[in-house]
């Protein structure tokens, strides 16, 4: 198995490593960097528990090789808190009871925070479609939708202010 030298910036910090070409990005994050907030729920790119943002785009990190992310910017759930303050999407999930077991939550938040950046005022249907690549077994999605709406309102307030 050939190895490659890669350099990936995760939540603003650059990490260099020699990795096997087959190493998945999710395993690079979880095992090489010990950043276990990104989860694994399936092997078929179906559940979205492993969703992270790669150069801003939400992707399922179980379907990206670490070498493909060489030179790119990764943002994970661990990078949502800024200057000690929760991201509005984190607040939204807490305020609206958008999580139960918490396993899908990081992926859900990464997908929906990306949605709010490209569409600050999504309709309920737009939210539901945006998160349709992220499976949740606990909440029935209703409170997740409310959590995203909460975050949208909160972010709009900030923009106005």
């Amino acid at each position: 198995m050939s190895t490659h030298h890669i350099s990936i910036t995760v939540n603003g910090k650059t990490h260099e490593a020699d990795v096997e070409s087959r190493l998945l990005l999710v395993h690079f994050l979880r095992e090489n960097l010990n950043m276990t907030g990104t989860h694994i729920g399936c092997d078929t790119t179906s559940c979205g528990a492993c969703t992270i943002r790669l150069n801003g785009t939400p992707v399922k990190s179980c379907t990206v090789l670490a070498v493909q992310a060489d030179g790119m910017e990764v943002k994970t759930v661990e990078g949502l808190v800024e200057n000690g303050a929760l991201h509005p999407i984190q607040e939204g999930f807490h305020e609206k009871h958008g999580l139960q077991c918490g396993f899908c939550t990081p992926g859900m938040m990464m997908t929906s925070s990306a949605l709010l950046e490209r569409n600050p005022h999504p309709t309920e249907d737009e939210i539901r479609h945006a998160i349709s690549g992220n499976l949740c077994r606990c909440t029935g999605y209703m409170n997740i939708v409310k959590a995203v709406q909460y975050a949208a309102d909160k972010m709009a307030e900030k923009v106005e202010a």
Partner: protein
Amino acid sequence: MTEIHGLGSPRKRVEDARFIRGQGNYIDDMKLPGMLHLDIVRSPYAHAKIKKIHTEKALATPGVLAVIDGPTLQKYNVHNMPTLMSDTQMVLPIDTVKYQYQEVAGVLATDRYTAADGVAAVEVDYEPLPVVVDPFKALEPGATKVRDDKESNHIWHWEWGDKEKTNKDFESAEVTVKENIYIPRIHVSSIETCGCVAKWDATNAHLTLWMTTQAPHAIRTVVALITGHLGLSEEKIRVISPDLGGGFGGKVPAYPGYVIAVAASIVTGAPVKWIEDRTENLAADSFGRDYHITAELAGTKDGTLTSLRFKTIADHGYTDAAAQPSKFPAGMFHICTGSYDFKSAFVEVDGVYTNKAPGGIAYRCSFRVTEAVHAIERMTDVFAQKIGMDAAEIRMKNFIQPEAFPYTSALGWEYDSGNYPLALRKAMDMAGYEELRKEQKEKRSRGEFMGIGISSFTEIVGAGPSKHFDILGLKMFGSCEIRVHPTGKAIARFGTKSQGQGHETTYAQIIAEELGIPADHIKVEEGDTDTAPYGLGTYASRSTPVDGASAAVASRKIREKAKKIAAHLLEANEDDLEWERGRFFVKGSPDQGKTIQEIAFAAYTNHPQGMEGGLEAVSYYDPPNLTYPFGSYICVVDIDRGTGKVNIRRFIAVDDCGVRINPMIVDGQIHGGLTMGFAPAMMEEISYDENGNIHGANFMDYLLPTAVETPKWELGETVTPSPHHPIGAKAIGESATVGAPAAFVNAVVDALSHLGVTTIDIPMTPRKVWELMHKHGATLEE
């Protein structure tokens, strides 16, 4: 002043702080120095002889340390393990596999990629054997025998009720109806799969097992029973259940992977991690349902239901790896008389072996209650349809009336409390039932298919009273230990284990209500057998009815002692003291009092002479009865004539779970429960081909609902407290999963009833609905 957040407070969850930051502590997040990884070789065949396992190539792979097979484990007599139903399950086979994806050998390596390489390098010579996948065929004479150690494929026969009277009542009945209902095999599919880290400490002969379990104490006892002959006794085993990424029943049983990991840690002396992938989870972990029910009802022409007769074939796969109370191999299936006042009933179930994955656990429900509710709620509609009665009317006519509680059912259960007509009326008002019926009539005249389905379910949860309930002999009481610290804060520990239900939040609210200590000052812990009081875990909606009761009772014990301390501090007679939440005061002199915080401090600094210091209590709560949550659901559907696609237009859910501890969490449980009722009704099924190849072993084939398909739920409530529960609560975690499927089916059948359709099995896929419509004469154009 810090808010108390007692009963009824929509307190935000304390668990969230770690989860929204990605700081949960799930099993796969664990990493120990020198930890090895276990991966498992699995059978491609549903039934085959293992002729030889070639391990040379695997062992030659750098980083692969060992291949463990059945004969290796046999040396230590741990190649088999008991199931929770006292059947036998292979940990690893000696010479035969009995279902596809069965564990064949374990590969131990330095990292997970190398372990997977090792699995790929193990070559196994199989000799395929005949396969039986259909439980009815399995019961035929001369059928392929699944188990070499058994006489036949028939596992057990169980029956309940008055057979003779029921048969007589059927013979003399004015109207009888009969349908075959298949409730297919499904899988809970928590988004986190199962796994463990086993760490054997040879120096101290001590095993720590971190594992995805809903019942850590029961697992500890089972491990001790399996390995006792090796000297691994219960005080040397510590089971820790970390944060669980969902459970729903799937994390109750012990799976072979856990045992192999323990064996591997003992053999190597290194910590061993085993994490299953999604296919292993779906194909080999315990499934739910798989009940073939022949259901009959008898009654009068004017719609009075009199008698019920259900006969069921339960497919358990190759071993009975269900998780039921020992006395009830079909769980509480005999709650199947539901919300109605039957004169007689008889139910029988036969368990059958097939060459399929073992199981028969609950899928987010209490012990076969969903199967029971599905059958009775469907059959009530079938009966109504036959006599031309409205689905709401027949229910109102046959409900157990509010004044009849406590009510003993024809099958012997004592229902604690209920107000069924109120819940249904409320659901009908929310739905605008009468208007919907008018609309349906108009639509039908235009050739459109619109249906309204009702399900008025009664659950039976909170196992359970020790006179009836045990698992492997272990009684199913609840447990709570509370310690109040000198500064008036507290820690409480429980024998249950949350998988997302929010116990850290809600248990604290019960104690806050009882003691007046703010919930924010009460830390709740579960899941560590070294620290928590013994308990049988969280499943079957038992946490609130049983351990929640323990929390209240332990709090009251503390209050009793607090009263004595208060009397001492106030120099008053105990009998002259009165309690208001958080404070004792002298009757008639409300100014003269002591807060629970002052009393707690005194318990450590100034307690009465002759009294033991400290302020703690433990309660092992043996419930006097089960609790019976109920509700009425109404589903409105429109069916596309051209495609058979069912559009869920509305779904109204009125739930009565008794006293609501935290309404925010109750609603969240209902949302999730409804979605897990919707899922099997419309999408989920695990089926097999005739060779025993599984269909549905990944999320491309086994469809979980996404946010797009999932309906928008409309919730309502009634509150009928449980008369025997200390705080009047009943439970809510599973009601919706139990009650919802029949509402979906009843709506679809209702939409097509004028064509002569009386039944449809779930999942109601567009193809199945289309075929049914067209078989009954519906054409593309009206």
